[in-house]
């Protein structure tokens, strides 16, 4: 396993500029000069200086009146973009419980190298994130690691067992940004309906990934021509759409606010679009890999393209892109699932599903804008302002005075691939090795500290 990077400490030290201040690490005041500020939430798109102090953005353009002379400066090469730090709405960090795969320290360091400043963690940890104690543990581990901020989604049922409700209101008060049963099913529809009703009582954001376990069965690839040729057990579209239709029926009855972390099929996009047109409080996201890969990528039996929900047809991929372009899909997530090498060292159906996606999330989203599949504004919104709104992160996701100083600096004209730079995540199960990317993160600030600087 890779060593965790040196601890930087994320909590801001209120003493200004002590002796021996290490600019960029300890320094409380930053001015970032000459970047093109790009922020869909505030509509800002101009070259300007930005001032950070006490973990916040304190000014854009002119320095504030009490600006000290001994601040740290980051002068950006001409043409580089400064965007709000990326919020990844669905990422497994494997801690607590599966530290042999990865940990909060390694993964939050990989995240900031990919421009991600906030990681939203589903509750399927061990122990399950169904108590405030686990939520606090995660927060503390993230603070110790000192890279990206980590926020947690609480469990909807105890032990994610699908039978007894978890203390959702307490989890909410304890800092969880939403509730979910991750990919675990509810015991029955009645229990699910009650969990939604209870969550709606407290106006909690609910995340549900629709996947019918009996239809999914042993399926490990999209039930289509490629799985047929390779003799792989197929996972049909109805494994997603049938439970989605049931979920929509229950949203209409309970009024629960529900977000689908990842859609995988054209038919599911259509169902969500129709429910939204009916005024239901449903929103949806998509993973970056579903926007780029199809069943054809499982053709070589590459275990790195073994994901659930599976990669589907080109028609599905195009419908997901169109859904994002038209606003039916509002967020893009990494669905980060780092694995140890052994998890992928087996015949395809026996490998563990999931990709390590933190370092490719932002490059893949921006590549979509490059190719004209979605506007740059939509692409950036899907990883900044929209997840901020979804999870109620009021002080993140935009470049405005008073907001958290979470920022990512991007070279929009870089040419790079993962083969050249290597992966920082403990999991190297990434299907995008060898791909060329045109945007590279040069530096990242979290809470006013520069936690990542790319060294050439």
């Amino acid at each position: 396993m890779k060593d965790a990077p040196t601890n930087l400490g994320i909590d801001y030290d209120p003493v200004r500029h002590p002796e021996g201040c290490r600019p960029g690490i300890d320094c409380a005041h930053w001015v970032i000069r000459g970047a093109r500020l790009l922020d869909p939430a505030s509509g800002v798109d101009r070259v300007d200086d930005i001032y950070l102090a006490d973990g916040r953005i304190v000014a854009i353009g002119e320095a504030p009146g009490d600006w000290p002379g001994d601040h740290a400066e980051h002068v950006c090469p001409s043409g580089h973009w400064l965007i709000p730090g990326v919020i990844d709405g669905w990422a497994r960090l494997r801690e607590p419980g599966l530290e042999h795969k990865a940990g909060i320290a390694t993964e939050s360091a990989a995240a900031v190298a990919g421009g991600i400043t906030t990681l939203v963690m589903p509750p399927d940890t061990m122990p399950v994130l169904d108590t405030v104690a686990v939520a606090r543990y995660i927060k503390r581990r993230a603070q110790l690691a000192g890279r990206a901020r980590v926020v947690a989604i609480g469990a909807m049922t105890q032990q994610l067992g699908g039978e007894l409700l978890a203390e959702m209101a307490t989890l909410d008060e304890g800092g969880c940004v939403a509730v979910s049963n991750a990919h675990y099913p509810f015991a029955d529809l009645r229990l699910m309906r009650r969990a939604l009703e209870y969550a709606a009582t407290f106006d909690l954001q609910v995340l549900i990934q629709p996947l019918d376990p009996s239809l999914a069965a042993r399926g490990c690839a999209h039930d289509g021509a490629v799985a047929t040729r390779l003799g792989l057990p197929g996972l049909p579209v109805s494994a997603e759409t049938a439970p989605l239709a049931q979920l929509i029926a229950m949203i209409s009855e309970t009024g629960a606010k529900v977000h689908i972390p990842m859609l995988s099929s054209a038919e599911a996009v259509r169902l969500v679009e129709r429910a939204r047109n009916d005024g239901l409080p449903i929103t949806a996201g998509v993973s970056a890999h579903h926007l780029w890969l199809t069943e054809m990528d499982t053709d070589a039996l590459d275990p790195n393209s073994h994901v659930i929900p599976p990669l589907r047809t080109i028609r599905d991929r195009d419908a997901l892109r169109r859904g994002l372009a038209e606003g039916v899909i509002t967020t893009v997530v990494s669905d980060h699932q780092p694995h140890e090498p052994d998890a992928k060292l087996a015949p395809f159906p026996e490998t563990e599903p999931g990709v390590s996606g933190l370092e490719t999330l932002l490059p893949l989203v921006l590549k979509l804008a490059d190719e004209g599949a979605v506007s740059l504004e939509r692409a950036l919104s899907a990883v900044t302002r929209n997840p901020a709104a979804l999870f109620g992160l009021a002080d993140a996701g935009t470049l405005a005075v008073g907001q958290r100083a979470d920022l990512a600096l991007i070279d929009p004209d870089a040419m790079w691939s993962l083969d050249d730079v290597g992966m920082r995540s403990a999991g190297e199960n990434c299907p995008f090795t060898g791909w060329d990317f045109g945007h590279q993160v040069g530096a990242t600030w979290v809470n006013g500290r520069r936690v990542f600087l790319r060294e050439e």
Partner: protein
Amino acid sequence: MAVKFVRPKIPKFAPDPWAIQFDDQGRLRHLLTIEGLGPEWITRILDTAEGFVSVTDREIKKVPLLRGRTVVNLFFEASTRTRTTFELAAKRLSADVLNLNLATSATKKGESLLDTLHNIEAMQADMFVVRHEQSGAAHFIARHVAPHVSVLNAGDGWHSHPTQALLDAFTVRRHKGDFTPLRIAIVGDIRHSRVARSQMHVFNSLNVGELRVIAPRTLLPTDVEKLGVRVFHDMREGLKDVDVIIMLRLQRERMESGLLPSEEEYYRLFGLTEEKLGWAKPDAIVMHPGPANRGVEIESSVADGPQSVILEQVSNGIGVRMAVMSLCMSASATGDA
């Protein structure tokens, strides 16, 4: 203080999964699937097999082509017929043969597939004959074996069973000669059949006139027509003007998993009886990869009848497997010299 980051090496993944079957000089090294062989290699294997089939008709059946070589039968799934014919083929080529029945052995004790593999590799094996219940297992093994080892796929999940398809093509060729005017029908559980998938590739590669599949929809995989077959759900229509009928084995689990209501209804609709055989061409041949369920997918009088070539398939299987073994080993033999 700068954080030092060590760049890890990311292994490359072959973009063309079928290319792994050939060495860098274009010689056949592994046989994993029919895909990628093309008509030239298939014909070459069938032609080589002709020579070996005549060897098996001789008084002394051995040839010394693989003397001093070790062939290991790695069977992670139970099999009698396939394992036996591979064993006989290797012995007739004068190889040493080791049979490992791993369905009951190490892997059940939690040993990983790769560990089992490397252990046997360390015993100086030259060729692995692999059967495994997971699709893609033979590719996985071929990707991880030492450079001098050949891998022959003896069936992986629902994916591929290339030597069975080759011996079927061999049998058809012996009876019918040219493939281009032929109509061939595969009947039964296509969905769970590695044999059917390999047959589709072999007959389409050999430019067969028309390839049909006949089955209820629950026994057909999604988009099966994209593999180059015409789909029928009715035996009378499907068998019309057919030269070759290939019946597939129906497993009893299919009734329990809700794919079929009963053996009786299946037999009535899709079982090959003498009456239904009459709907095909009068000189049609009947094939079955075995073991046949009499009274479930085929009537005894048809299986044992004059049009049946089922036993011939078994004996041809030895010659075809000898051909594949000798071709794959000749790549590594010249490598040693």
